[in-house]
């Protein structure tokens, strides 16, 4: 993502990166970044919490206007839970298999999606 942000910015498009991995944003030196300290997979808010989602997206967009220096990273105050126990799980080195096999077959979420892609002509097989 940082590579893409830097490319866009170098070609005249201001960018805001929004996500939950501070170390990845810092290493990639994004032009602007907003950190949501939630478990990965919830960069724009908690599931079924439209108020939280709106709050996060609004704050990230506001940074496009308010940040004045490259490599600024703003950490949002939003908390996933009161105890932060999720962090220990996220940091476990012996966590379960966190990646799928690298395979060149399209991985549809549902079997119905494959049928829909075939019907629209996107998938020909």
């Amino acid at each position, binding site marked *: 993502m940082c590579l893409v942000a830097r490319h*866009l910015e170098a070609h005249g498009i201001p960018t805001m990166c929004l996500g939950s991995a501070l170390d990845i944003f810092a290493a990639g030196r994004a032009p602007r970044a907003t950190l949501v300290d939630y478990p*990965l997979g919830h960069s724009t808010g908690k599931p079924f919490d439209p108020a939280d989602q709106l709050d996060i997206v609004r704050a990230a967009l506001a940074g496009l206007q308010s940040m004045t220096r490259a490599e600024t990273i703003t950490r949002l105050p939003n908390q996933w839970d009161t105890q932060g126990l999720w962090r220990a799980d996220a940091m476990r080195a012996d966590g379960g298999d966190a990646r799928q096999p690298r395979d060149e077959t399209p991985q549809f979420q549902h079997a119905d999606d494959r049928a829909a892609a075939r019907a629209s002509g996107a998938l020909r097989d």
Partner: protein
Amino acid sequence: MTVAYMQAIAERYKAIGYTPYRWFKAEEGPAWMPLAKPLADSRIGVLSTAGAYALGQMAYHYKDDTSIRRIASLTPAAELRFSHITENYLKDARRDPDCLVPLTALRALAADGFIGGLADEVFSCMGGVYSQRRVREEIAPALLAALRQQKVDAALLVAM
């Protein structure tokens, strides 16, 4: 304290015997382009790197898929799907896509004038591409062209 993802994921992959993932580490600072007009007048483009696609579109494959999906910004959340090499992080987004592709929030912010407008199409690709060369030479230029075509004034890039 935030989670040290690069270290945790590197250790996990090593234990499983996967090829190490090399995150991009920038040697130099980034370019800087200030917003040319107030946010309330700016047309906003969006990229999700979570492997989003709309019902009827192709899913992603998991071996350095560098393709991009153009998704109408009026797409109902119920028609958004995800495929990403790290599927384990998609559990909630597959139930509520607005966790990662916040079209509902963006449409609301455009409707109330917080932003000048939302691009007609938002974009997605699949992060987790091992080849930085292919990100540089394929994904980045394709997105630049796509966002220019949408005439956006700024872009929100949402990681997974």
